[in-house]
């Protein structure tokens, strides 16, 4: 009787359902991978052909002429990202230190929540806000405005990473430092933060990788520039912006260059992500040398 019951519930339908489900899941995985592979392959093929030394070192030529490059956009991006790092890293680490070391009340819950909110602000809306806050008073587009926009976008990621990493430093380490007669502020920076440093740097690099590719916030802050610019208060070219402008243009030559630019951009971003993975793989707390 026991056997009969088992046989009744053991139907082929269930096995087929199981197999189909597995197949479905594998199919999903493949379908997800395909665009990634397609994008990267396409990028390398189209981009590599247009990538040359000229591309990296020259500014764009006027429409219709061949040659020229995105050198100014690369430098411009570097400038803007430099400004954004100057803004985003200190504020982000500071807020992270506050949340982990000093915040135990309602203010810290609020800050954490608002940091999450900030993270969810669409990048184009950020561009509008910074336009109103920086561009309008200055009366022109500027690298500074672009840096501010991107810097603000870096803050939530860095804050969360810093807080998490600092919280992971065991209490015993902090107590050891305090018991030696070290002032609290020195202990936080020279001991706690230093112990958590690899993780914090990871967070910073991830934030950097994210904003390096952002275009929308730069549309009305840095605005873009056909020429070289290193001044903080002038419109400046940026790599993602230039790619966008070229991509939607009707010129084949510019399309080629857009691919090359995309290749450079992806290389920078992927490079950063890979370095982050390597640091994480080596473990958070290594001894000295």
């Amino acid at each position, binding site marked *: 009787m026991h056997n009969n019951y088992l046989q009744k519930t053991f139907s082929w339908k269930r096995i087929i359902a199981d197999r189909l489900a597995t197949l479905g899941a594998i199919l999903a995985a493949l379908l997800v991978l395909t665009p990634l592979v397609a994008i990267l392959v396409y990028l390398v093929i189209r981009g590599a052909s247009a990538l040359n030394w000229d591309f990296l070192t020259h500014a764009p030529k006027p429409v219709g002429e061949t040659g020229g490059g995105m050198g100014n956009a690369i430098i411009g991006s570097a400038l803007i990202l430099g400004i954004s790092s100057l803004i985003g890293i200190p504020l982000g680490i500071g807020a992270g230190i506050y949340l982990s070391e000093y915040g*135990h009340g309602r203010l810290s819950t609020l800050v954490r929540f608002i940091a999450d909110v900030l993270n969810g602000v669409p990048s184009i809306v950020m561009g509008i806000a910074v336009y109103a806050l920086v561009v309008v008073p200055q009366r022109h587009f500027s690298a500074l405005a672009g840096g501010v926009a991107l810097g603000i976008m870096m803050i939530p990621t860095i804050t969360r990473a810093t807080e998490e990493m600092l919280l992971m430093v*065991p209490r*015993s*380490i902090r*107590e*050891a*430092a*305090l*018991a*030696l*007669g*070290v*002032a*609290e502020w*020195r*202990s936080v920076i*020279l*001991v706690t933060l*230093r*112990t958590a*440093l690899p993780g914090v740097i990871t967070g910073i690099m991830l934030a950097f990788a994210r904003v390096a590719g952002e275009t929308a916030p730069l549309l009305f802050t840095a605005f873009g520039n056909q020429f070289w610019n290193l001044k903080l208060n002038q419109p400046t070219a940026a790599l993602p912006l230039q790619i966008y402008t070229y991509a939607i243009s009707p010129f084949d030559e510019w399309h080629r260059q857009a691919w090359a630019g995309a290749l450079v951009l992806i290389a920078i971003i992927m490079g950063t992500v890979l370095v982050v993975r390597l640091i994480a793989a080596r473990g958070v*707390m*290594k*001894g*000295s*040398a």
Partner: protein
Amino acid sequence: MSVRDVNAWFGHVQALYDISIEIPANQVTAIIGPSGCGKSTFVRCLNRMHETIPGARVSGSVMIGNLDIYGNGTSPVLVRRRVGMVFQKANPFPTMSIYDNVAAGLKLNGIHNHRELDEVVEHALRMAALWEEVKDQLTKRSGASLSGGQQQRLCIARALAVQPEVLLMDEPCSALDPISTAKIEELIFELRSQYTIVIVTHNMQQAARVADSTGFFLLGKLVEFDSTEKIFTMPSDKRTEDYITGRFG
């Protein structure tokens, strides 16, 4: 060290009740008692570490010489330079080398002169009986790569490098094997001529071996405090007797 009417709280929960003790200088004083009786809390009140716990509070006074460490305007940082501490679980700084660990108390406070630091590090490590074992690898090995017993001796060296007057030890051997424990007890015995040592221990034989005076704590109160010999052979309080003979705890 002179402790008078010290009370301590964790938030609303009182952990120590009116503790008053005279801790003799240049001797080893042991604090014994069952788990949760407030031994660690008491000792942490002696170097103002208890208040670093959020919501914790201390009242009363603790005098070192003429200084009340809980007096108005006394900086806890200064107090901790005079009263050093070694913790139950060795906690060397993982990102620093052995040298940097020992020198931490000085380096973190801004002293960077290499020759002076070299001197201090060597002396501290010798006093902690660790010098011979690590002298070739001072800057090459991280503090965390040593064995348990060595790490604890490293922590002792680190505490000594700051030249405190009092050294507090919170169950320093409880996480160690018997051989390391023996080495550290040896160390304590040697150090006592230069420092006042207060050691918390749940191991009564250790107290008997190492300490000149012993205090017995129970449920946050000091039950008895006397020379070790007297406590263990002829305790005046029945509770002490019960504890020592193992009837509870």
